[in-house]
């Protein structure tokens, strides 16, 4: 599978999807004008990875602000991981947060609520 790499902008996060490492990384603020257009490739990549490969998949998040549609897209990604987890695929999410902004923990917990796959919320420097 191809590497998917999207550079960050003032309103969109940096995204890196590496099939060899089984890693998706998202970092920064997310309030694109058209979330569905922006995240289209990412969603396609995740679906393709889960359908065509059987190796583990880890999603590392260092997200700060999400607009409403970004929240929705992230939930859609978690739905895909949840479906995969039910089929006994090795998937996990690690949500890194800035220790100076502990309110992010509550937000991450909200996302985690409906997920049964491993979901860690870790303070990062």
């Amino acid at each position, binding site marked *: 599978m191809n590497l998917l790499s999207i550079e960050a902008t003032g309103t969109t996060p940096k995204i890196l999807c590496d099939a060899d490492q089984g890693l998706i990384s998202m970092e920064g603020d997310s309030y694109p004008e058209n979330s569905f257009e922006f995240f289209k490739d990412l969603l396609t990549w995740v679906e393709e990875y889960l359908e065509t490969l059987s190796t583990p998949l880890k999603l590392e998040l260092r997200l700060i602000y999400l*607009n409403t549609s970004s929240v929705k897209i992230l939930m859609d990604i978690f739905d895909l991981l949840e479906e995969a987890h039910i089929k006994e695929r090795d998937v996990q999410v690690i949500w890194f947060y800035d220790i100076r902004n502990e309110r992010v923990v509550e*937000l991450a917990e*909200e996302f985690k609520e409906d997920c049964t796959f491993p979901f860690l919320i870790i303070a990062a420097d």
Partner: protein
Amino acid sequence: MDTSKFDNQHEWIKALIDDPAYGDNPLKPALVQLFQNEKKSRIKLDRLMSLADAFGHLHIETLIADYERLAKRLEKITRISDRYQKNMMDLNQQLQQAAFYDPLTKLPNRRFFLPKLKEENSRSQHEGSPFCLAMLDIDFFKRFNDDFGHEVGDVILCRIAKAISVNTRENDHCARWGGEEFILLLRNTPVLIATGVMERIRKAVNSIDLSDIGEGISSSTSIGLTVCRVGENYNDTIKRADTALLQAKRTGRNRVEIIE
């Protein structure tokens, strides 16, 4: 499905089975089998009708379940999004605070104060009623830092700032002007009233309890007070208040010196 358009119940059940909208309905296979074998199995029509009724209801229940699941998801998205919005607002407020307030004493800083002074100067020139400006400087403050260290010096500064702030009238503005300097704008106030206010502040600073820091220690402030002049730029008012402060220092400290 509207049953009134069918001539009989058989036609209605057949239409139900043929309708692609009910393709996933789990009762469909049972209904199809019974319908096809109706005569053979001698099943009574009313039992078939009951099953057909249940068939329709189950589809509606599936739709309701789907709707409820989507509504729950929407509620969650909205709740999370609202939290993000609130966090952003709180962060903005903190940034505002940092931009316009002194982090040590929590008093407004110059950036906050100067526009207020400019505004009051305009008002005064326009309405013809005066405002007063006072400069305050803590007497011998360096001694606190030298004798007790900067951390204790900061504590004393904060107590003095609080005494000034608490005795500032609601419509007036005080700010930390520099290291141990403060400034006070007495809006729409003649000099006689302003003198009374500044005397009160001077006494309040004098009365601060510093016994926990050392025996016999007290604080005091020198104050330079002036009143605005007609047609004057507010920077000149500041300079005159500063000159008055210098005079207060030269003539013994712990006093209010006035230059009108």
